[in-house]
């Protein structure tokens, strides 16, 4: 049985935030389609073959990528593997607890993983070492260290940056031998880019990049994973109230511009 810890927000706070939004404003003064300040520090962890520290407002995630040689899945024997894992560290929020990943953490890593995988960001076929026997597995670990809302967009941005930063040793086969050359590090075969824009439905309006304050009172959440060319590669609705088709199409529309804006951070 998976259980969601629900923070109880006094009705009065909820109502006040709703009213502000209905007046076309947000509690922190942002426009409905405005992100908080974003910073991205690439290569933050030297010991990781790829890494990034991302901040969206006060939300902060460290992402590390580590390649490891492993066995391919039986149904995709010639294809490398991307494994995404996230930890909502108890350090990041008074409501996070130690222990195995809860359902929020699982959702975060699975949505991030789908966004990276469905968009075919990495050419996984190039990660085969000996087809059917040995492939590169890329472990992507999301370390959530400060939680102030909108983990999805930060996780995807940090993951994309870490993967673009990742280098793996060159491998070659000589007869029966595989040579793995740690002196020749080559970048991951990145073939596309995808990012995610998350919206909150609050007081009937759709606002981008919800802060924690907004997340606590939102009716619904919708996240749009999008590639550079505007193709949708992932989508995830959350929250305990419904949304309409109009909400979704509006969010998609805004994402087209915002994804381009976010892509600038990767340059």
């Amino acid at each position, binding site marked *: *049985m*998976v*259980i*969601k*810890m*629900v923070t*109880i927000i006094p009705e009065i706070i909820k109502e006040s935030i709703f009213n502000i939004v209905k007046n076309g404003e947000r509690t922190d003064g942002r426009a409905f389609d405005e992100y908080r300040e974003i910073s991205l520090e690439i290569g933050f962890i030297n010991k990781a073959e790829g890494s990034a520290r991302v901040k969206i407002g006060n939300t902060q995630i460290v992402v590390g990528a580590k390649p490891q040689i492993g066995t391919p899945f039986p149904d995709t024997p010639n294809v490398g593997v991307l494994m995404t894992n996230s930890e909502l560290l108890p350090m990041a929020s008074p409501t996070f607890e130690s222990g195995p*990943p809860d*359902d*929020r953490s*699982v*959702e975060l*890593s*699975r949505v991030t993983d*789908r966004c990276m995988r*469905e*968009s075919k960001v990495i050419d996984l076929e190039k990660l085969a070492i000996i087809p059917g026997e040995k492939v590169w597995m890329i472990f992507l670990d999301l370390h959530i260290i400060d939680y102030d809302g909108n983990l999805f967009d930060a996780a995807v941005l940090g993951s994309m940056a870490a993967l673009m930063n990742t280098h793996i040793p060159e491998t070659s086969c000589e007869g029966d031998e595989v040579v793995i050359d740690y002196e020749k590090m080559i970048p991951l075969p990145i073939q596309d880019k995808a990012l995610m824009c998350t919206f909150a439905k609050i007081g009937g309006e759709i606002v981008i990049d919800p802060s924690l304050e907004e997340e606590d009172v939102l009716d619904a959440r*919708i996240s749009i*994973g999008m*590639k550079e060319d*505007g*193709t*949708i*590669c*992932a*989508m*995830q*609705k*959350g*929250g*305990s*109230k*419904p*949304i*309409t*088709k109009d909400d*979704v*199409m509006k969010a*998609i*529309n805004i994402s*087209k511009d915002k994804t381009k804006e976010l892509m600038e951070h990767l340059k």
Partner: protein
Amino acid sequence: MITIITNTNINTGTEAGERADGRASNELRPLKIEAGVLKRADGSAYLELGGNKILVAVYGPRELHVRRIMQPNRAVLRCRYNMAPFSVDDRKRPGPDRRSVEISKITSEALTPVVFLEKFPRSTIDVFIEILQADGGTRCAGITAASVALADAGVPMKDMIVSCAAGKANEKIVLDLSEWEDKEGEADVPIAMMPRTGEITLLQSDGNLTPEEFEKALDLAVEGCKKISEEQKKAIIARYGD
């Protein structure tokens, strides 16, 4: 020593634009829903959709013993989506994996909007979804069956959530992807909705779609939901009369 496995007959793809199982693009697989199939549960439902065989039991509203998640002013709706070890080709190890944890979470969020939880403070409504046989689209089929089980349990709801997926397979936008279309196809868009208002309570998209394709898939899924909704009602009527 090399292990060679000869190929089994899987119903594979066909010519461009046609579906492997011969369905029209807006055609559902054969559907069967039955309410009230278990003795002990407060409510239950059994659903077959194509090769899917799904059983749902509902317990509650009942007392909640876990203080940590108790809500002083309403009930908690908890869902557990679980696959039987024998439900899939390669035996699944018992117990929750990451996939079922995520599906349990979004299933709970999909059903919550219609249930009058505030009528039952400090209690829980537990929904147990068992996938006895999986054939693509189990999360949607599970939600559809769960609604019927909730109704069978007499849980007060303002609408009966219905769920269906559309997607892109073999370059075409199609309704209710089969297991093979789900695996080999380009994209899958599962939704759940309130049939009375058309509002969406679950929405995911997995795979690549242009915004236009996505909208088409969404519309098709809504159409599918409406058909399935009729079958849900029939199942309830079959058990309780009009």
